[in-house]
């Protein structure tokens, strides 16, 4: 693990020596259980107001980490503190209030909204302590904040496109004014042009509502754009952590280098020229200047 960032005050999210194991029973006809170590001795912290990215491939534990942070599951060992308070353990009411500080946006626009609920009810769901009327009007405000028309509230999720449904998810996550926004691959299931819109929106709301962002993704280039700090994970462990530009330009861990090399951006592919190892044709016109990127 490399350079921890300088901090003068206690971090908002503090993860210490967290382990999460699952026991999976073996296939029928074989006895015993298999232990899956989803997270191994993970320690990291996120200061308030930071945009923190977590990058890794499938099975690295990033989604498990997000479930632990959002309170959906408890760690097998270790501690997770938010604003100094332990997430797991404590009275149910305390836990609920604490967890409300952290809201989540999920990956799949199709399964993250109840198909039988109207959009305004979906958005108002986190408002536990408000009257129906107040909840409705707050939901209306959030619709506007995410760029959807007020009439959207009367409709059902299936009447919206993937990008619009992610906007609704974001509205739901923000309606109770949390301090932390946890995003689990929020743009991975979207088309490229829609992805750009939603990323812009996320950056806007994080700034407007003064949020701390934890952004989980397998795509390092997306994390690079939206985050300040990135943590790279592999097999449940932290491989590297640091400011996003530094990690991207001068990765120190082998795994990080492999990850970066495996997913070049379009810009670098076009700049690499036709004689780079994978592109082997010789009849291309050389792109002289990448005009489109001016």
């Amino acid at each position, binding site marked *: 693990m490399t350079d921890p960032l300088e901090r003068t005050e206690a971090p908002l999210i503090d993860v210490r020596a967290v382990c999460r194991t699952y026991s999976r029973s073996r296939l029928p006809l074989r006895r015993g259980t298999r232990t899956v170590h989803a997270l191994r001795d993970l320690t990291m912290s996120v200061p308030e107001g930071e945009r923190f990215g977590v990058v890794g491939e499938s099975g690295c534990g990033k989604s498990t980490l997000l479930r632990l942070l*959002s*309170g*959906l599951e408890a760690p097998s060992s270790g501690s997770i503190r938010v604003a100094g308070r332990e997430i797991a353990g404590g009275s149910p009411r305390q836990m*609920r*209030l604490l*967890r*409300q500080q*952290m*809201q*989540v946006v*999920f*990956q*799949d626009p199709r*399964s*993250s*909204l*109840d*198909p*039988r*609920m109207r959009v305004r009810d*979906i958005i108002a*769901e*986190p408002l*536990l302590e408000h009257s129906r009327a107040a909840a409705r009007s707050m939901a209306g405000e959030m619709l506007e904040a995410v760029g959807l028309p007020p009439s959207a509230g009367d409709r*059902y999720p*299936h009447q919206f496109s993937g990008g619009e449904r992610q906007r609704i*998810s974001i509205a*739901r*996550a923000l309606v*109770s004014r949390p301090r932390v926004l946890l995003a689990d691959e929020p743009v991975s299931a979207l088309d490229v042009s829609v992805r750009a819109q939603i990323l812009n929106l996320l950056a806007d709301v994080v700034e407007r509502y003064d949020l701390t962002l934890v952004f989980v993704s397998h795509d390092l280039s997306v994390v690079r754009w939206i985050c300040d700090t990135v943590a790279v994970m592999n097999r449940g462990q932290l491989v590297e952590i640091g400011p996003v530009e530094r990690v991207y330009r001068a990765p120190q861990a082998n795994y990080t280098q492999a990850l970066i090399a495996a997913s070049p951006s379009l810009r670098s592919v076009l700049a690499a020229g036709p004689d780079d190892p994978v592109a082997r044709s010789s009849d291309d016109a050389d792109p002289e200047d990448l005009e489109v990127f001016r």
Partner: protein
Amino acid sequence: MTRRPSPGLIVGAVLVAGVVFTALLSFVWTPYDATEVQVADRLLSPGAHHWLGTDRLGRDVVSQLMVGSRTTLTVGLVASGIGAVLGTPIGVLASMGPRWLDRTVMLGNDLLLAFPGLLLAAMLAAVYGAGTGPAMVAIGLSTLPSFARLARAGTMQVVTTDYVRAALVAGRGSWWNARRHVWPNIAGLVTVQISLSFAIAVVAEAGLSYLGLGTAPPTPSWGRMLQDSQELISAAPLLVLWPAAAIALAVLGLNLLGDGLRDLFDPRLERR
């Protein structure tokens, strides 16, 4: 609902309404007394006096069908009602509760499923006497495990969606999730299962009556009419047709109604 109901729903509703109407009508009027035995007039073909003929004891078929519809409706609704009202919450509870509860409940469910329905009916009859009531309860308990299994599977699917996770993260508890998310999303499954159970119940009641464990004679029931007329199928083939058609139409109507209602309440299916 601002949507137009589908043709299936309309046909189903009409058929079911027809049966209900017939049952209600039978309280005030039937062409003949359904239980009146007129041996001289037995096995008449359909004609001007007896529109669908008479059975082997000279009882009017139309009157029997009408009065029998009461039994059919009662048995079908009560039996599938017991199954649905008791079985669905069991399935939901098993799915949403801790693992040990799930295993215990489903073990009990499997035991009930394995228990022969006939034996259950016989046991209840031994305690409470043979009749429609114990028969309905026995059949209802026999259909309960299917409802529990179905509800459990449906609940598991709903509970693992991101929207339920989002509700949990937002601070909503299991009770809210069960009411607001699980129930609306499994209601369609349960509705369809009710119509299937209804059909099973009607036919089961027929078998029980035949064995003397269900509706006692002389109270007419479609199922028993079916059983009785099987012996005479060479002498009076039409006698099988009438109760069979009645059962088939009632079951069809319920199936269509069940499917139609499920679709009517699904906001994803738009009908312009």
